């Protein structure tokens, strides 16, 4: 197991992607989908399998040869008759360790190669989807995907390799017994079938039910625990803390019971495995004795039986793991098989310079909306309701309104990230469909709510917007976003690594980085969604004022909830429940009663 996986598990993020009790035909189909990932490394995989089988056979040979050596020695033959066996015993002992080492290395090598391959393919599949995988912004779903991808390692290391080793070693064991004392092949085969087929099957079916119960109870505990932790204040004030705490403790108790049931099954399967092993060896020895075999033969078949059954015992564990792996494999196969969206877009050239933007009767339904954070039920499934907006080229327009009113959706519609149910979004006088998707994306961009800070350096994060930017351009953008002062205070300046999701930065620093990146991009239409969130109001107003008055640059659409600096906006749009309810210049809107003035007065009071 790689260290990274461990780290993620410590963080509690990985685990079976959620699906339990999968398998069946769909699972097999999923495996077929994954096999293309492994196929390029088939040679290496066979090499790993060969090493594994050889290691296990060495173990078998070690015991058989040692048994033969001792039993034969008791018959007091010549030294020459034994020397081969003596060399064999030593050779097998060394070979087993060395081969096991080689198998593990080769196996992990194949697994990691397949993982690398799968990561690339999954990334391409996600990138090829028409829209960004929004659902993946949710950490749980992202973790599920990541662990699904990593399950390919377990498929190879914990399912396929042990299975191959088990089958070959079982067969060789039967062959050895058949040669030594033919009648013993029958009980050994029976024992192998019980340990290698019946027990794994039992582990699979009984384990599936138990695992499903654990998942159910774990989910229940998660919900109860979240209530207790996040709702602590409400519970305290309403005197309900004890009641809900008791409910969560009860959920923890139920989870404990479910976990006990699951561990009991694992215990029973394990114990049954050793019972089958011992019983098989005993029956094999008994049969050999009854059939008149001599001591050498009895010793060889009895010990061979022990080792052969031991080789198939990991199959029960493999079967349990296989259940989760198959569920992951099925999801991966579905993801890789989903066809890329039809690209029936025109190829008109996007004109250079600032562009005009027009929305004509644009209606967007919620399912396609960007940020349905609140209020799915509230607005009857409509995020934008017949919105008409015209922004001349180079103008700077601010969009304000309540959370969930449709501001972000409006930006997304302009950027072509959501497809309107009705109406038309036009760029430079032509519908977005007239342009290639990539061209629209290049022309309309900036800072969106789902903007991501990557784990690399600060510089790399900015250069994403314009890979060929000079240091001067970099610093100019950073200065405007008030990010330059942040960079100067970072331990390694521009080369400071910010950690995944910008963990090393504070909320305000992160926001400034994102704004600097958007400003560096300097597209024909700049869309900024709450660029000054998490900044103190003075800085926020300063930045906003500058954004609205800065000479040059593209058309600007700015979503904000701070009104104080909007005096310089060419126009302000007030969005409420998916409609533009007011529009005009800041001074005019403040002068007349309405939603904008209410917001303005509230802001002045909270200033």
């Amino acid at each position: 197991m790689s260290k990274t996986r461990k780290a993620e598990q410590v963080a509690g993020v990985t685990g079976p992607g959620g699906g339990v009790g999968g398998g069946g035909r769909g699972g097999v189909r999923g495996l077929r989908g994954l096999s293309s990932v492994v196929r390029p490394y088939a040679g290496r995989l066979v090499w790993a399998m060969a090493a594994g089988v050889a290691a296990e056979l060495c173990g078998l040979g070690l015991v058989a040869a040692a048994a033969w050596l001792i039993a034969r020695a008791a018959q007091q033959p010549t030294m020459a008759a034994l020397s081969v066996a003596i060399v064999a015993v030593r050779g097998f002992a060394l070979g087993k360790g060395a081969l096991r080492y080689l198998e593990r290395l080769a196996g992990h090598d194949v697994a990691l190669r397949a993982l690398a391959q799968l990561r690339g393919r999954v990334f391409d599949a996600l990138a090829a989807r028409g829209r960004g995988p929004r659902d993946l912004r949710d950490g749980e779903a992202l973790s599920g995907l990541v662990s699904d991808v990593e399950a390919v390692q377990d498929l190879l290391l914990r399912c396929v390799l042990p299975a191959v080793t088990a089958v070959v070693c079982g067969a060789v064991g039967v062959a050895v017994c058949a040669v030594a004392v033919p009648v013993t092949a029958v009980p050994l085969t029976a024992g192998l079938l019980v340990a290698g087929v019946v027990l794994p099957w039992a582990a699979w079916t009984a384990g599936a039910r138990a695992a499903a119960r654990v998942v159910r109870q774990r989910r229940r505990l998660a919900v109860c625990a979240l209530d207790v932790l996040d709702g602590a204040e409400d519970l305290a004030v309403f005197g309900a803390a004890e009641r809900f705490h008791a409910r969560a403790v009860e959920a923890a108790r139920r989870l404990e019971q479910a976990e006990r049931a699951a561990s009991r099954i694992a215990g029973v399967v394990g114990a049954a495995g050793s019972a089958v092993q011992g019983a098989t060896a005993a029956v094999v020895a008994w049969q050999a004795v009854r059939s008149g075999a001599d001591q050498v033969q009895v010793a060889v078949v009895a010990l061979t039986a022990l080792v052969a059954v031991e080789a198939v015992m990991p199959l029960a564990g493999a079967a349990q793991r296989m259940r989760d792996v198959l569920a992951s494999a099925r999801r991966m196969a579905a993801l890789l098989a989903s066809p890329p969206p039809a690209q029936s877009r025109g190829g008109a050239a996007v004109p250079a310079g600032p562009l005009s933007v027009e929305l004509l009767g644009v209606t967007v339904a919620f399912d396609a909306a960007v940020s349905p954070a609140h209020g799915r039920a509230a607005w009857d499934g409509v995020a934008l309701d017949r919105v008409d907006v015209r922004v001349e080229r180079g103008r700077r327009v601010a969009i304000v309104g309540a959370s969930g009113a449709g501001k972000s959706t409006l930006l997304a519609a302009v950027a072509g990230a959501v497809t309107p149910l009705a109406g038309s979004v036009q760029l430079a006088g032509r519908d977005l469909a007239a342009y290639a998707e990539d061209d629209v994306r290049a022309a309309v961009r900036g800072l969106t709510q789902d903007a991501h800070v990557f784990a690399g350096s600060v510089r790399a994060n900015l250069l994403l917007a314009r890979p060929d930017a000079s240091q001067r351009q970099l610093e100019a953008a950073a200065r405007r976003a008030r990010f330059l002062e942040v960079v100067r205070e970072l331990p390694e300046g521009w080369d400071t690594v910010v950690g995944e999701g910008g963990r090393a930065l504070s909320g305000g620093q992160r926001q400034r980085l994102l704004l600097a990146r958007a400003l560096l991009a300097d597209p024909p239409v700049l869309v900024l969604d709450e660029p000054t969130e998490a900044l103190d109001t003075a800085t926020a107003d300063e930045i906003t004022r500058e954004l609205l008055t800065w000479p040059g640059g593209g058309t600007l659409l700015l979503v904000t909830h701070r009104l104080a600096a909007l005096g310089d906006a060419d126009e302000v749009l007030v969005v409420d429940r998916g409609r533009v309810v007011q529009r005009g210049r800041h001074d005019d809107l403040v002068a007349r009663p309405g939603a904008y003035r209410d917001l303005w007065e509230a802001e002045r009071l909270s200033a």
Partner: protein
Amino acid sequence: MTGVVAVKAVERRLVGWLPRRVPVVLVAVAVAQAVLVVVQADALARAVAGLDARLLIVVGAAVAGRAVLAWVGSDVAGRAAAQVKARLRTALLARPSAGAGGARVTLLTRGLDAVDPFFAGYVPQLVAACVVPPVVLARLGAADWVSAVVVAVTVPLVPVFGALVGARTAQWTGRQWGLLRRLGGHFRDVVAGLSTLRAFGRAGHQSVVVRRLAEEHRRATMGALRVAFLSSLVVELVCSLSVALVAVPVGLRLMEGRLELAKGLLVLLLAPEVYAPLRALGSRFHASAEGVAVAGEVFGVLDASAAAQGGRPVPRREVGGAPEIVLEEVTVRYPGADRPALAGVSLRVAPGERVAVTGPSGAGKSTLLAVLAGLVVPESGRVLVDGVPLEEMDVAQWRSRLGWVPQRPHLFAASVADNIRLGVPDADAGQVRAAACAAGAEEFIEALPEGYATVLGEGGAGLSAGQRQRLAIARAFVTRAPVMLLDEPTARLDVRSEGLLVQAVRRLLEGRSAVMVAHRPALLGAADRVVRLVDGRLVSDASPAAGTGASEGTAAA
């Protein structure tokens, strides 16, 4: 070195959570296992040597016994693991999460599962490794002391080599850890940022980078594994060679007639059993490492909040009637903050008076409400309710006289009705309906698939911000409490939701005292008086008609 010590401390503490009888049972099981191993090997050796099929019954019985013991052992260990996890979960549930509820929930569900290998694998194996080898070795010595000496000399090599190589690899992989983590995390990072990459037209470029870094990750990991697997290679070689070292002389002595076959076979069967528990211990130890790390995290949480807690006992004293609330020079300072959240705030709320609090974010408005609700204890100053200091009152009883409408009310994973009657669990359907009606919530509740019985999703998913607020107001209505605390319930609501909410608030505040944080004009209209907080200080106090008056000072009684 300190790292190792810390890990050991965590392990010891983790073992301390085991029910006391578990180690006893595990030792008993291990002893019985060892005895049966000896019996089984003995019977099998004699059966083979004497070609005596009857002895195989003994072998069968021993096998059955071992299976039963294995089952008992794993059941006890599995139970113990589940039990310890349940205890740790219960302990974690009692600790405040300071806003990071999601992370805490992950820790207490899936995160804790990582301790399974510790209890179900490592601990039983550790017991077995201590108990089984001596017993088996004793039998070995009785049968053939020469072999026993060889085994006894080589057995310590297993842990010694394991530890030596392990220490070397730990050093090596410790240096690689950061690199591996970064390379392995890259995929997650770019998938999370895919829409950003697409927006900047870099998805195609990243597709190449993903493959390149995954390849680098493989190479780095393989480098680490080559060393890490060495330790098990060494241990395995030591075991195999030791068995060979025993087996070959035994064979030679048999040949010379200096040893009987039954004894020779017994030695051959028993020798590996001495090494086996020790050999398995290494891998069990590695498998339990992440569980120990998680346990360290859990103990960190338990320790941190244990220190932060520690309230004082509250003497009970009855209070009744519509109270007068007075704050006297109340100062609150949060740990780690450089300035107080509230600095010497004095305020009087007359019975039935409705006071609105305005001020910039971070001025201490929410803290003021938290102090009134007894959620935050002031560093200095006091809160008097009808002249009785809050700290001398039974806080539960005081809270039963409060209604609470926070900025983001938490909706619980329970039915709508149960969410409304949070403070009054025995309220009947009529009372719930009346409260919902008064809060202007009955219309949307009845439109829900199962009306009042609809179970809300996690955190009230599926409801709009305005609907959540109206449920919170219904919740406050049911309590019939004489004092209401509201924290900016209309912030960022759309116009229509705000309108509905303001009506509901007006109905709620009728005939009650209230302290509410508010900025929007519509809500301010429901107040008798407006005070303003800036940087934790009360800077003005005026009636809403006067707007933001300039009269410095307070209205302390």
